[in-house]
């Protein structure tokens, strides 16, 4: 079903569109989908509800992809995927999930994604706006070894917050024995679902993939729990920013490398110089060199003084004059940290926590301090 989007292009409705409308959602086009931005509770309220209780996000716009090795050996699929990511997938055990990056030939980031080993296949969740690029890349690079299946007609829900586990366990008792980044296929009311204990909020929580035609009654049962409330993309953005997590198109682009983005933790020793399988992915020379020698600039957290600074603001060393030394990639008022927060790129010499910089907000220089991240302590169930 299609609706006329804000930009006048055809925008697809989510399978659960009617539920969102009934819940009073304000909908807007995002990555070709009509998405719930917020519900009557509002972005602040939904953000705080997520940190205090349990919030349900419909993130069905995300791409879900299944990769199987035609040989039947998952190891072959792992090695094929390792041609595309600086990540150790051979050590990713069945039932586990890992953050990964698709890189470009110049060491940039084509997309960031989650990869789960479901025992007989890899299950990938990729960014909505990058599905076409990712798929073309996968087809070119791994279709010699793998069957690539885009999972359409599926709903992806994120249940996030300290009470998410109890709410989900009522429907899926196994949920409570999962740890952070565990992943598995489950029978959910007779429907084949995929559940991972992960998310994009800094809270404990789950992502649940279900067949679209089976999702509505499931969602109704989740929402019947008084701790669970809908939350939209607006709260998802402020939650991920407080958690210090990158958003593709903002902190990550084809022009930023994983080292510049401070994502060294996502690149395991096996894929680094001196490891068992160093390099062997697009842009490996640039990335391996930056891993040993460092990059010229770095993603940092920023704490603006007094007022929020937004994406695109230039950063300066002085309160007046001078050339920009960097820029803000995301910025907002942090509803839980109760202060303005931002992320941006600065030269490494200015990336030390505490460094005072200035953000230009329409001609006014706002002081910003380089800050550690995350801005709120994560509460993953490790």
């Amino acid at each position, binding site marked *: 079903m299609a609706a006329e989007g804000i930009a006048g292009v055809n925008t697809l409705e989510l399978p659960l569109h009617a539920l969102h409308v009934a819940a009073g959602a304000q909908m807007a086009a995002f990555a070709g989908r009509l998405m719930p931005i*917020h519900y009557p509770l*509002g*972005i*602040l*309220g939904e*953000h705080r509800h997520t940190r205090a209780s349990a919030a349900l996000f419909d993130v069905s716009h995300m791409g879900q992809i299944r990769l199987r090795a035609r040989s039947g050996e998952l190891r072959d699929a792992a090695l094929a995927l390792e041609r595309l990511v600086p990540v150790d997938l051979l050590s990713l055990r069945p039932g586990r999930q890992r953050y990964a990056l698709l890189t470009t030939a110049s060491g940039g980031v084509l997309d960031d994604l989650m990869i789960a080993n479901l025992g007989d296949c890899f299950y990938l969740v990729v960014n909505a706006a990058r599905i076409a690029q990712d798929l073309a890349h996968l087809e070119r690079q791994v279709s010699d070894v793998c069957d690539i299946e885009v999972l359409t007609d599926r709903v992806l829900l994120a249940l996030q917050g300290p009470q998410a586990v109890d709410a989900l366990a009522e429907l899926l008792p196994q949920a409570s024995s999962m740890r952070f980044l565990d992943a598995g296929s489950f029978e959910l009311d007779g429907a084949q679902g995929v559940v991972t204990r992960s998310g994009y909020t800094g809270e404990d929580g789950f992502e649940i993939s279900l067949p679209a035609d089976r999702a509505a009654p499931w969602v109704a049962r989740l929402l019947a729990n008084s701790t669970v409330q809908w939350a939209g993309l*607006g709260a998802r953005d*402020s939650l991920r920013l407080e958690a210090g997590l990158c958003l593709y198109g903002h902190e990550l682009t084809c022009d930023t490398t994983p080292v510049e983005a401070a994502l060294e933790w996502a690149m395991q020793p096996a894929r680094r110089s001196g490891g068992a399988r160093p390099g062997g992915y697009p842009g490996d020379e640039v990335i391996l060199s930056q891993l040993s020698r460092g990059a010229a600039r770095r993603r940092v957290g920023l704490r603006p003084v*007094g*007022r*929020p600074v*937004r994406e695109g603001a230039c950063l300066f060393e002085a309160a007046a004059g001078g050339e920009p030394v960097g820029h803000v990639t995301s910025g*907002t*008022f942090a*509803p839980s940290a109760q202060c*303005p927060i931002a992320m941006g790129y600065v030269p490494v010499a200015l990336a030390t926590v505490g460094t005072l910089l200035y953000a230009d*907000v329409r001609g006014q220089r706002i002081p910003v301090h380089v800050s550690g991240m995350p801005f709120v302590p994560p509460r993953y169930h490790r």
Partner: protein
Amino acid sequence: MDIRYTAEHEWVAIEGNQATIGITDHAQRALGDLVFVQLPNLGSVLTRGAIAAVVESVKAASDILAPVSGSIVAVNPATVAEPALLNSDPMGAGWLFKIDMSQPEQIQQLLDADSYARINS
């Protein structure tokens, strides 16, 4: 009291030579939860159309323009401490600042309630 509006979704309450300015209910709905308010300095002199205040929601920043020329004779610091007042009571406790008008005839160019309702429909 005579209440006028601007196409930028500000309300202007006129009492003698003094104009009290805030954002309309329509504006606060469109902006969503307000999280930051910056008010003009007391005594500053503004010409019509100059940036007088800044309000920011979780979604976006928005300039509040001086709807009439004059000097700032009062500001509402409660909105700085609690920007949510602009959501809960935009035309009452959420007022932003008062201008002593230097050109009161500028009022004639503001919108009345009917005209403002029409631009929102």
